């Protein structure tokens, strides 16, 4: 009986050596796995950060083009339909480039002279405000705001000038990659989703399949609605501005459309440059007030809130303003300006997914409980 207790004490040298070897091998293996895993995570993070933008743009483009391709699929095969859409899109984009190029050169030339003028005017305005503030509240110290604003504006201008060639390269890369990705998403998107869903275990496959259908339908509606809304708001503002004497109307329209993707804050940011330019160039006259009315009343209240949002976007996707701020700040921290624009839609996407799962579960719980309440009379009948 004693032998099991005795045995460990009497380990031979060979056994100790073996135990030592096994232990150190285990520790080495653990370290190796850990370090390779962390480097793998690092690698995949690098790869993801490169792929993030092209994937995002191609997904959005896929959501936009999918209904058109589906309509064409009734006549041709899906691949032929995609090619037709691509040829049309190519024609449209080249026309757009032809139209925009001269404006674009003029825009840059004017920006070089106009931007310092706008900033100096803004600084003058700020100075007068500070002076009047000083008169009324003399105990406020002079923080040198105008100087800070001037250096900030100069930095911004320098950054824009330095980044433009770089971002042009990036945009050139995107112009090649995004159509390629979009082509495959359009052609094989359904197959990719069903391959992912088929990884689910048998017991949960049916629910996963159903949910993926419901969620992807909601998502495509949401993304499509948001993009169409932004395009229409941008067009309305560009058209409204070109009725006045303001310069850069198309650019301001594009800016307002893009910022319109951010709820609450976006429209305000979108109207700042337009109103500043209008004030600097046109003064506080009738045209200035028309531009203010255009931005706030026509584009935001009338077109966006009364017409577009009720038609295009379901109220399901509404986020709490606090959540919107979180999304914008976190998105800006992660991916800069683009992160700020896409942060809110991504949070909405997560919310839509969760809501869809909840309604799905609730829908099927109700009839089940009804079934339970029906059961007892059934048994009575049987007896």
């Amino acid at each position: 009986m004693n032998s099991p207790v005795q045995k460990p004490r009497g380990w031979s040298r060979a056994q100790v050596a073996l135990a030592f070897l096994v232990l150190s091998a285990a520790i080495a293996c653990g370290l190796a796995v850990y370090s390779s895993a962390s480097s793998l995570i690092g690698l995949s993070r690098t790869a993801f950060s490169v792929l993030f933008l092209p994937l995002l743009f191609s997904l959005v483009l896929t959501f936009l083009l999918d209904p058109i391709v589906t309509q064409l699929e009734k006549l041709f095969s899906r691949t032929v339909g995609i090619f037709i859409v691509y040829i049309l899109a190519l024609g449209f984009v080249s026309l757009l480039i032809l139209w925009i190029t001269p404006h674009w050169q003029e825009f840059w030339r004017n920006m070089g002279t106009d931007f310092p003028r706008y900033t100096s005017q803004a600084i003058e305005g700020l100075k007068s405000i500070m002076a009047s503030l000083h008169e009324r509240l003399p105990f406020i110290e002079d923080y040198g705001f105008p100087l800070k604003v001037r250096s900030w504006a100069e930095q911004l201008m320098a950054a824009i000038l330095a980044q433009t060639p770089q971002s042009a390269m990036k945009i050139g890369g995107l112009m090649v990659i995004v159509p390629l990705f979009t082509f495959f998403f359009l052609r094989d998107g359904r197959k990719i989703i069903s391959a992912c869903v088929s990884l689910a275990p048998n017991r949960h496959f049916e629910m996963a399949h159903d949910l993926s259908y419901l969620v992807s339908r909601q998502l495509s509606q949401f993304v499509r609605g948001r993009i169409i809304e932004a395009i229409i708001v941008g067009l309305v503002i560009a058209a409204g501005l070109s009725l006045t004497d303001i310069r850069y109307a198309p650019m301001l329209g594009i800016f307002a459309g893009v910022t319109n993707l951010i709820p609450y804050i976006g429209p305000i940011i979108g109207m700042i440059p337009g109103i500043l330019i209008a004030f600097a160039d046109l003064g506080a006259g009738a045209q200035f007030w028309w531009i203010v009315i255009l931005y706030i009343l026509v584009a935001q209240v009338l077109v966006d809130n009364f017409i577009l949002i009720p038609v295009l976007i379901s109220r399901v996707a509404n986020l709490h303003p606090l959540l919107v701020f979180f999304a914008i700040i976190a998105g800006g921290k992660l991916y800069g300006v683009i992160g700020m624009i896409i942060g809110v839609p991504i949070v909405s996407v997560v919310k839509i997914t969760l809501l869809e799962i909840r309604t799905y579960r609730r829908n099927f719980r109700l009839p089940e409980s009804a079934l339970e309440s029906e059961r007892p009379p059934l048994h009575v009948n049987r007896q």
Partner: protein
Amino acid sequence: MDPLWNNIFRKKLDEESLSFFLKHLPIFSELSPRALSSLEKIVHVRNYKAHETIFEAGDPGSGMYMIRSGSVQIYAEDQNGVDEELARLNPGDFFGETTLTAPAPRSASARTLETTELVGLFRADIIELAERNPSVSSSILLGLTRVVSERLQAASHEIRRLRNQASIQISPENIET
């Protein structure tokens, strides 16, 4: 290299292909080759081990299963909590077809009895096909409706027969005996 080229160029033996299996089901027997090939693209082939639960009563039901190989037991719990076998299904049979068009919880449970290969056809795919290709989806649904109606007719016939039997049993001369 080889598997890739095989994948593209191999002519599948007719009898092992999915479309061969689908064509020989009574539901899809009248489909055109084109409809069959679109059907082949939207069904899901799932492999089950022996004694694996496919679904349980009360689960959200969203489609039907066809048995390609193996066998399936349909069962329900009676009031004592004991499983009661309702049906035993073999290759070529199908089940769960009532939830294909009308979303409802499953009314009974199903489990496999041996290693089984099932072919699932789900509502979401049918709806998507109806948007893309209405004529094909309507011919698939017509076949389905035909089989479901046949089953319904058989069921109402059975109900009438059982009611007649019951009324004979309840009639006075039977009660005394």
